[in-house]
């Protein structure tokens, strides 16, 4: 038996396997799902579980990299090769929804027994809406709050059970906690010139009555002035301007910053790395009693408008939503729903923190929604950086941003 025979047999075996596979799938409807989730994360796991149910709908999964989600989806849609379902970052949802690339799900959701809009936090839900209609459902969510080092609070004579509530208290605490001799900054946050900078700044402007539509309002200017004070008085590292949230919070974990503004994605790393007692507080507000706000992150599910099987695709979405209860217990992500309680993890620090984040989520607001969000965001990032580097005053910088945003809003 020579190599030749082996090859022939191999080819024959391959051919028979593939014909068998095709014939088995023939009557199934195939739905394709794209998301950035890796194998242990929600999407591929849920897809595998769904396929085990044998509902006559076969789901194919494809993982795409975070940086490629939008460009890949655009290319696929404009050449008619879009998947049926995609997970899209929430500030980019409106871009597709406004151009009719996503399917209007309003009627299907109204009839659905599984998907109820009332179950969702208002922020994540709003990011899936365009023009009053539902163009998707939130997949998971996150937000930002204030982490603080309780041991450092004690050492500097601050009450570790009374974290700063207002901007003034935050500045005061940061001044007391900053200790250049010990390489400790009062606060760590990110003012990076990418989406992270906008993500961190916008809640501050919103708490003071501003927003992206009126970014040069008095409140937004005051917010940026507070940021400027933090940088100018060296209460936070100047490298906050080029450092993302993950790296900035790393300095908190290593004891080089006494407070940090970041999200729940930090919790697991902090539990292993931080060798001190810490807590989480709601984002400080401009003054006592002021409106709360926070950032809103994570992805949404949407169905592409040119799907061949809208009803089946919606069934798959319904299955995903029905599994939201596993979002935290199995995958460590926060479901975007107010009707699902986060189960205790048995780690007191984490459970306390999650309570605060769940509370903060009630105030989380979407970025936009606007189809040209990246341009609006870029204008805000440039303003933050121009002011923090001292090249422009907060007012001038935000006036310029408002000008650029006005051109985008039309």
């Amino acid at each position, binding site marked *: 038996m020579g190599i030749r025979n082996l090859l022939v047999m191999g080819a024959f075996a391959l051919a028979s396997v593939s014909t068998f596979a095709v014939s088995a799938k023939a009557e199934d409807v195939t739905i394709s799902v794209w998301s950035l989730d890796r194998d242990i994360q929600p999407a591929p796991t849920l897809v595998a579980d769904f396929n085990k149910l044998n509902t006559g709908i076969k789901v194919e999964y494809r993982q795409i990299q975070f*940086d490629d989600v939008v460009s890949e989806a655009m290319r696929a849609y404009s050449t008619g090769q879009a998947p049926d379902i995609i997970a899209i970052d929430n500030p980019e949802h409106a*871009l597709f929804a406004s151009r009719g690339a996503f399917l209007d799900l309003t009627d299907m959701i109204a009839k659905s027994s599984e998907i109820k809009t009332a179950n969702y936090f208002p922020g994540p839900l709003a990011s899936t809406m365009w023009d009053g209609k539902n163009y998707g459902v939130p997949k998971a969510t996150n937000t930002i709050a204030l982490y603080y080092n309780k041991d450092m609070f004690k050492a500097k004579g601050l009450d570790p059970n009374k974290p700063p509530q207002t901007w003034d208290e935050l500045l005061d605490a940061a001044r007391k906690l900053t200790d250049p001799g010990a390489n400790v900054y009062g606060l760590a946050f990110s003012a990076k*010139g*990418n989406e992270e900078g906008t993500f961190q700044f916008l809640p501050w402007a919103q708490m003071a009555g501003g927003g992206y539509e009126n970014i040069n309002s008095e409140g937004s200017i005051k917010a940026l002035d507070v940021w400027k004070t933090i940088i100018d008085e060296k209460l936070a*590292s*100047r490298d906050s301007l*080029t450092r993302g949230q993950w790296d900035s919070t790393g300095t908190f974990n290593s004891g080089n910053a006494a407070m940090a503004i970041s999200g729940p994605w930090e919790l697991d790393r902090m539990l292993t790395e931080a060798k001190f007692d810490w807590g989480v507080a709601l984002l400080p507000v401009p003054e006592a009693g002021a409106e709360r706000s926070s950032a809103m992150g994570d992805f949404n599910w949407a169905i592409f408008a040119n799907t061949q099987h809208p009803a089946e695709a919606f069934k798959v979405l319904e299955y995903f939503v029905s599994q939201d209860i596993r979002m935290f217990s199995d995958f460590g992500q926060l479901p975007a729903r107010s009707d699902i309680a986060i189960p205790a993890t048995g780690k007191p620090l984490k459970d306390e923190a999650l309570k605060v984040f769940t509370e903060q989520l009630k105030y989380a607001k979407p970025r936009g929604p606007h189809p040209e969000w990246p341009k609006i965001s870029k204008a805000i990032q440039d303003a933050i950086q121009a002011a923090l*580097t001292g090249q422009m005053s907060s007012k001038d910088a935000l006036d310029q941003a408002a000008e650029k945003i006005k051109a985008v809003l039309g």
Partner: protein
Amino acid sequence: MKRFFSSITDGKGFDILLVAFPLGYLFLMSGLPLLYNVLMSFQEVDMFSLGTFWRPFVGLKNYRDLFAQPETLPILYNTGIFVVASIAGQFLLGFGLALFFWTNFPGASWLRGLFLVSWVMPGLVVGAIWNWILSGDFGVLNFLLRETGIIDGNIFWRSDPDFSLWAVIIANIWLGMAFNMILLSVGLSAIPKDLYEAAELDGANAFQRFWTITLPMMRSSIGAIISLGLIFTLQQFDLFAAITSGGPNNSSNVTQYWAWDLSFRQYDFAKGATISVIMIVFVMFASVVYVRSTRHEVRG
């Protein structure tokens, strides 16, 4: 007919065939995308018309809009500084090292090989390492400068608009120096030794020998290395992505990074293409210099 076939296997036809393959490849892989890019810079492009070829023509609108933006001129200026400073640094240090290793002390060729390691490393890795070195609070560079008493306070290399561009330039000089050194070493070793012997007999000192023999004999190598350097620095993207992301407030932004940011961050593909066209003009210029300087190459 027979003549035709024989000319293909051996003769003019064969020559044409040999030239046609690389030309066709170049046209397909570089020429078409380049033309498409130029076309896009005159069109209105958004993500939903990406898949189509005939999009609304807007004439020079993209160019006008681009130059109306307040950040355009500073970014072009930054690109100029980045290119000139990087090439100057890479060339001078590379030439110095090449001359140093040319003296052929024991282990010289070995050490010279080791220097190439920096050229082999991926830009993103180099960027990540320089990111730590240049960090404001805990960076090694600040530590050295502080310990030697050159500075009092920390310099925030990445986040201070006065230093951010130079932070990337320093990293880029380090990255490109070894490549310069190797190419210049090749040029140096091609100079016939008897020229120096004759000059020495005539009483020329070291400086005169360098000025009248080394430099003129190296002319083509220098022209090539500088135009290659121009192309490599205009391609340098990884270091910007890893160290400053073009910030703060565009103070370290350059055209190549900006084109990417506009196209793939803000989805403004037309403007991204417009910047690329402007860059193509510069690279064309470099290519002409490169071709001209290598045309008269003499290999001894």
